[in-house]
């Protein structure tokens, strides 16, 4: 019997004309790994929430959902809560208690399980996930990745038969995200747990899933094995652009046979099909050689007297009019360096100059007037008002003067916007101060591929208008497609700076999927466009 059977599910939110989910039917076999993808607003979250009775949205619902043969509306309360596990996107907010062990025990306590049994199950689940070393910690001390792992573990302590996850890695950095995905893979392959996962980051997920479901505007437009589904998406570039690099290249070249999913399969495909001799693109990398917009001169910083240096001898400069991307691992000090540039923290040694003037010389907060502005990682912290319109009029910003259109969002509450919309709205507010130097911290965090390309477009437009942009990011694909220069941050300083094409083709590990896949075949293919162009010059797909 299948674990889940959804029949003709249609759902309409109150006061909405169009249904958020319309006529969706699918079955989930026991022990399978299912991935649900689709653009923001395509109804993924609504669909997933409809499968979990306790948090199902209010509205008009038609159709039925059967869990192991029983209609979920007629399940026993405790059985429904325990056997369908649900993990949400927000790492911080979905944690309830103050201690890690208490969080693990929380669900079991709710079910009224005896203390000895709770101890056994939390111990078991903590050992499975390697939570032992931080079992006694405060939940607020954990990193984002640990928080999500804790949420997953505390759901699994209840021994669910079906696990539903709604974009669990959206707020995580790539390393933490891939750790989380491998935990899911382990659960599926070692415990036979049935999983439904909604995701934007498909590079790692698609190769390990059994089934790929694609949603668009509330309906399920594809449902099947990932290779077949992707091969059928050639006509839908906006969905295809989130798929693994190998499969994108394959589909765009119109390849025949089995669609490659992993880097390895992609290489095999390229080696088989590419016969020409051209290995190199002549990319003229023109450097923007203006005055220095931002200069760091051997800057040292630490958070307290006894803690280690976070910035240790940081030395770099950003030229006026360029897009400068700082990449690097977690905790390497990237965000701290932006905070230092924005004058939020004071280094104990070294100087920082903005447009040739030392930070100290910007008296009476003149630094923030028509000069420098920073957009933080958590864009929610930018908003102070109840609607976007108030928000913008508060900083006397005319939405029509922006390089992009957000007029349709003006009457919404800023917190109700999607991640991509929030990013654009926050940027509008920041641009109102007419900065000449814009500092962005992880602008693509948690965004779907479509919103990402929108952000890239906006940043490039800003550059044309003469704004210097300095970006801190984890997202190598993003940096490769928009930066003028990229810098690698490691252990409190910058270890290499180069234009993206040479930067990424020189890196072996820390580089784009395309670059890893074409290594040895092409010399400097970094983005998918590079790879496509090289393939076509070599005679295309034979």
């Amino acid at each position, binding site marked *: 019997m299948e674990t889940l059977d959804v029949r003709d599910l249609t759902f309409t939110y109150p006061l909405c004309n169009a249904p958020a989910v319309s006529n969706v039917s699918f079955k989930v076999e026991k022990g399978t790994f299912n991935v649900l993808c689709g653009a923001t607003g395509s109804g993924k979250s609504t669909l997933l929430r409809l499968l979990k009775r*306790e*948090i199902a949205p209010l509205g008009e619902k038609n159709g039925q959902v059967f869990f192991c043969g029983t209609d979920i509306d007629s399940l026993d*309360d*405790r059985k429904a*809560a*325990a056997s369908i*596990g*649900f993990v*949400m996107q*927000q790492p911080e*907010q*979905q*944690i*309830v*208690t*103050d*201690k890690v062990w*208490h969080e693990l*025990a*929380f*669900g079991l*306590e*709710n*079910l*009224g399980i*005896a*203390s000895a049994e*709770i*101890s056994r199950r*939390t111990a078991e689940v903590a050992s499975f996930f390697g939570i032992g070393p931080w079992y006694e910690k405060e*939940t*607020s001390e954990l990193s984002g990745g640990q928080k999500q792992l804790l*949420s997953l573990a*505390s*759901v699994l302590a*209840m021994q669910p038969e079906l696990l539903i996850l709604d974009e669990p890695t959206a707020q995580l950095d790539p390393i933490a995200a891939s750790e989380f995905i491998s935990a899911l893979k382990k659960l599926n392959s070692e415990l036979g747990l049935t999983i439904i996962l909604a995701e934007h980051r498909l590079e790692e997920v698609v190769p390990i899933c059994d089934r790929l479901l694609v949603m668009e505007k509330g309906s399920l437009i594809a449902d099947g094995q990932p290779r077949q589904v992707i091969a059928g998406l050639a006509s839908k570039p906006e969905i295809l652009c989130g798929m693994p690099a190998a499969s994108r290249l394959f589909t765009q070249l119109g390849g025949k046979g089995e669609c490659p999913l992993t880097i390895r399969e992609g290489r095999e495909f390229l080696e088989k099909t590419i016969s020409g001799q051209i290995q190199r693109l002549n990319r003229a990398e023109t450097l923007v050689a203006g005055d220095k917009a931002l200069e760091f001169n051997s800057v040292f910083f630490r958070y307290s007297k006894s803690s280690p240096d976070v910035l240790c001898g940081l030395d770099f400069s950003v030229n006026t009019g360029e897009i400068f991307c700082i990449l690097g691992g977690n905790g390497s000090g990237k965000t701290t360096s932006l*905070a230092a540039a*924005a*004058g*939020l923290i004071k280094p104990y040694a070294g100087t920082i100059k903005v447009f040739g003037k030392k930070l100290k010389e910007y*008296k*009476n*907060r003149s630094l*923030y*007037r028509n000069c*420098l*502005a*920073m*957009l*933080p990682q*958590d864009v929610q*912290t*930018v*908003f*102070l*008002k*109840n609607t976007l319109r108030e928000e913008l009029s508060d900083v006397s910003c005319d939405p029509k003067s922006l390089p992009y259109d957000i007029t349709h969002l003006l009457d919404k509450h800023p*917190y109700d916007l999607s991640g991509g919309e929030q990013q654009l709205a926050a940027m509008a507010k*920041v641009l109102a*101060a007419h900065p000449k130097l814009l500092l962005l911290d992880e602008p693509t965090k948690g965004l779907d591929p479509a919103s990402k390309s929108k952000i890239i477009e906006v940043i490039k437009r800003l550059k044309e208008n003469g704004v210097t942009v300095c970006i801190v990011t984890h997202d190598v694909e993003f940096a490769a497609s928009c930066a003028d220069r990229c810098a690698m941050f490691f252990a409190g300083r910058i270890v290499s700076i180069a234009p993206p094409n040479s930067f990424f083709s020189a890196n072996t590990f820390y580089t784009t999927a395309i670059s890893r896949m074409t290594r040895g075949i092409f010399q400097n293919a970094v983005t998918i466009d590079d790879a496509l162009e090289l393939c076509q010059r070599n005679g295309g797909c034979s």
Partner: protein
Amino acid sequence: MRSFSDYHPIVIAVWFFSVTGVAMFCNHPPLMAIALCGGVLFFGVRNGLSHGRTHLYFGLLFTVLALANPLISHNGKTVLFVLDHNPITLEAVLYGLNSAAMIVGVLYFFRSFSQIMTSEKLLCITGALSPKLSLVLSMALRSVPMFGKQSRKIADSQKAMGLFSEDNIIDDIRGRMRIFSILITWALENGIVTADSMAARGYGTGRRTQMRRASFFAADWLFLGLTLGLVGLCSAAVGAGRLKFEFYPQLRAASPGFLGIAGIFAYAVLVMLPLINETGVKLKWKRLMSEI
């Protein structure tokens, strides 16, 4: 043998409330002296020479309290001298010293109590009373630092966007007000996600249980028994009126008799109980180390 702070939270709480309870409901000078000395000693042994500021504050408080009584109260028969037409009496001076000893002694005990009673131990005790109360406390303990963090984050991002355009106090206050108002919205918005996460994990489906992590060992029973026995003896002495002491109009102590002396002795042992335990632990470790 375990250290005092590793005993079961209920044992620790019972000891603290016995010691401070006797001190607060009785005014027998020897008991107060024991409470003050015990409080200082206990805090000192736990913290060594650090916390100089605490000692300074408490010393100041002691002086102020001891001086205030004779200046305000002029009861008592034995006049020591007259200050600005007000008689200063021996009884009032002694009463002031006695109550200052009590208050400062109890404050010292509470300082140690707050060091020992971590949130986890507190939750264990409240959980024994009501699992729901314990959950509310746990959530509160989590949200307070979370709010602080978020408000700092909002303030920083507003600053870097030029919200505080002028460098003056009025502009700063206005900015803070706006941050406070959005913080409330943020808290409510957050609350929805947390509530969903709770509902998804079966909150409200019936009676809750509580995971008990601390367990009662033989030593816990022993310590609890000793505490209750000693405090019982002491209360018996107080209840029988053997530890009655009057300051006004002139000093008068009831004759303590055997029970009274036993009560005072019991209180002294009670106050010293953790220190005796700690000394035992240290000696045992020393022996164990020397055997390695």
